[in-house]
């Protein structure tokens, strides 16, 4: 109860244009006459925020499927195939009223008030419709993740082969019949593109420590910072050296050539090489 009262208090403070703060038009209208209304609507969005315990409506896939049929029959002409709006009807993914709706508690009454809307939908149909719309909203909110991997095989195979053996200098260290034999089978095209751009080391870097007047100590790098360097020597012992003035550190960087190429590649090079690597089946 405390939270409910507080939310109302906040609502009053948040609405600078109260004359626009009616629920009736919350589904919006055509864009041409919408701008002052939308601006006011956005200013008033908190009017409906936190009206109850916050929990997004969980999408029921079966209900969303039924709701899609309702949407296709009654709504799609004006609001568009993905509910993102058309010139005839506003975007429903971005609608504050739809966002705050739970199982039709907002959309149901709004449908009855808005002109040219289907007013004889049953409560069950309205609820199904909300599942469809919520499904669209959740998909939009998560679309930083791809539905399917992007197609990166847009380059020219022969140009990729030429680059591999020429300007790219890849053949200096790699061979299509040696270390890269069958690489096109081993990785997806997207992973191939990422791995040749940003290869990872399969084993630790090699480091040699030389103390003034002492014998060099070599091994696999465990860690290094400005103050110490740690390695595991050939006997398996973990050793740490302070990086003072009396120490010389020689650290291999097997990926240096790759990393330097990042300033050289064109995007076309990248697509061509990915296409060529994918051909190494």
């Amino acid at each position, binding site marked *: 109860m405390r939270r409910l009262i507080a939310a109302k208090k*906040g609502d009053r403070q948040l609405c600078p244009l109260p004359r626009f703060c009616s629920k009736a038009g919350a589904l919006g209208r055509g*864009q041409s006459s919408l701008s002052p209304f939308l601006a006011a609507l956005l*200013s008033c969005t908190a009017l409906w925020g936190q009206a109850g315990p*916050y929990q997004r409506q969980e999408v029921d896939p079966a209900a969303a499927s039924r709701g899609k049929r309702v949407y296709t029959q009654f709504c799609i002409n004006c609001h568009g195939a993905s509910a993102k709006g058309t010139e005839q009807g506003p975007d429903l993914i971005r609608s504050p009223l739809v966002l705050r709706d739970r199982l039709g508690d907002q959309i149901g009454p709004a449908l009855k008030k808005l002109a040219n809307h289907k007013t004889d939908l049953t409560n069950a149909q309205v609820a199904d419709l909300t599942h469809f719309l919520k499904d669209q909203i959740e998909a939009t909110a998560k679309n930083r993740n791809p539905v399917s991997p992007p*197609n990166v095989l847009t380059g020219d195979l022969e140009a990729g082969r030429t680059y591999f053996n020429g300007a790219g200098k890849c053949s200096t260290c790699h061979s299509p019949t040696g270390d890269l034999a069958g690489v096109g089978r081993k990785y997806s095209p997207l992973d191939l593109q990422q791995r040749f751009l940003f290869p990872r080391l399969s084993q630790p870097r090699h480091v040699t420590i030389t103390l003034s007047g002492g014998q060099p100590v070599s091994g696999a790098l465990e860690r290094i910072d400005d*103050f110490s360097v740690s390695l595991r020597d050939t006997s398996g012992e973990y050793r740490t050296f302070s990086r003072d003035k009396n120490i010389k550190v020689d650290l291999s960087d097997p990926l240096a050539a790759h990393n330097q190429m990042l300033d050289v590649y064109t995007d076309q090079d990248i697509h061509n090489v990915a296409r060529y690597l994918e051909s190494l089946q």
Partner: protein
Amino acid sequence: MNRGMKRLAVFLFAVTAFGQVSFPEAWPGYNGDASGRRFSTLSRINQSNIDSLSLAWVYRVNPGRAPQAGGGNVNTTIKGTPVVVNGVLYTTIPDHVWAIDARTGREIWHYVWPSKGGWHIGNRGVAVLRETVYVETPDCNLIALNSKDGKEKWHTQICDLEQFYYASVAPIIVNTSVKNHVITGVSGDDLDIPGYIESHDPDTGALQWRWYAHPEPGTPEAKTWPSVEAMLHGGGMTWVPSTYDPDLNLLYFGTGNPQPVIAGQGREGSNLFTECIIALNPDTGKLAWYFQPSPHDTHDWDAVQTPVLFDGEVNGEPRKLLAQASRNGWFFLLDRATGRNILSSEFVKTNWTLGVDAKGQPIPNPAKQPKPDGALVTPNQGGAINWPSPSFNPETGLFYANAARAWSVYYLYDDDDKPEGWGGNDRSGFSEAMVQAIDYKTGKIRWSHKWPGGGGGVRSGLLSTAGKLLFAGDPSANFVALDPATGEPLWHAALHAVVSNGPITYELDGVQYLVVGAGDTLYGFAMRAR
């Protein structure tokens, strides 16, 4: 010199270049003083004695066993800069505020907000005015607490969870000759919603004004969008605290990415006022000027990094300056009275521009916008710098950024004429981290200290002091002091986790303290009088 005279001397010494007063015995706000320089006049800890710095206390936050709203584990990483007032240090994680004895590290009180949800990615800290502590919550509330006991005075809603907003920024106190303000910002970029900044009455929480990060329909700036609808859903979140110049009575802050974030084909144009450095009158919320570091951004390079204010000399003329090292890899020097650009230069090498326009704003290269088959871009989405604070040292004239040179491939997933949400993303690859010391007069890198042994994306803020020290976190969980003139590492402490916030310093009873957060723990170092 008696105690009162000592205090007066410290007080006078702390008068900053443009008339502000800071209190060395405190760290009164997110950036210390309102300038955003994160430069302390304290010098008890200095190059000659840094090796004698001792650990005074350790405080590990314990949020208890209450589950995090929305599920998952409680995010206990301290990403906020502590505020120190009257010997009390205030620190936060989302939904939690602790008051700690700044001398001993002992807990005084712990406040827990019963959250309804929102993204618990982090909290940047509190603001304090007299006996009130202000904090924002992930579920869109501004809360006022009694500084003595942590009891709630009031709370008020500042954004709408239903539209996928959340709140994470540290509020800022701005006291003008007209009235006092608590400045709040908002976060959220899952859906296409407009960003805004608000001012509230410190006593009641009442809204004083709200400024949206988009132009008014019909204004010339509105033509930077293809439609009113795109503009009103165009993003521009305000999730890093503001700075303030009392002489000009201007509030400065940055705005975040436009929406949709990656798929920009439905919002052709420069998309004002997203990706902008903004100057507002804090009494009215009216726009004074804007400068846009990333016109038509499609890489999530929020231009929210602290706009740092200082007075300096350019071509022999004294100038009121504002500098930003922006997430897109560019350093900008502006006249903070007018917003006019003085200098634009890369502080790490980038590959996404075709140069700068007549206003000094980078021109994005269309070839480096996200593509269905990928575009190789530097910096990556994390940026050449992110929210961690930079530092400007008036003694060296250098602007320091804990930076990264990072590469990734940007993919466009949604090629629809009207994409929404993100519609694409990047996949990151190679990166390296470094501190860049930028000469503000030329934009050139005076020195660069590359951190060994780690990738990019260091999330540590910086602090420089009159003790000729520059403090930073490295990627190897060290808290490091560098020579601000050369970048040479002088001292370090190995912590249990990488530094996760901005270090602060303050002096109490003749002891200078240095406090830094790493993960869920604050480390308090001290240098006692000798």
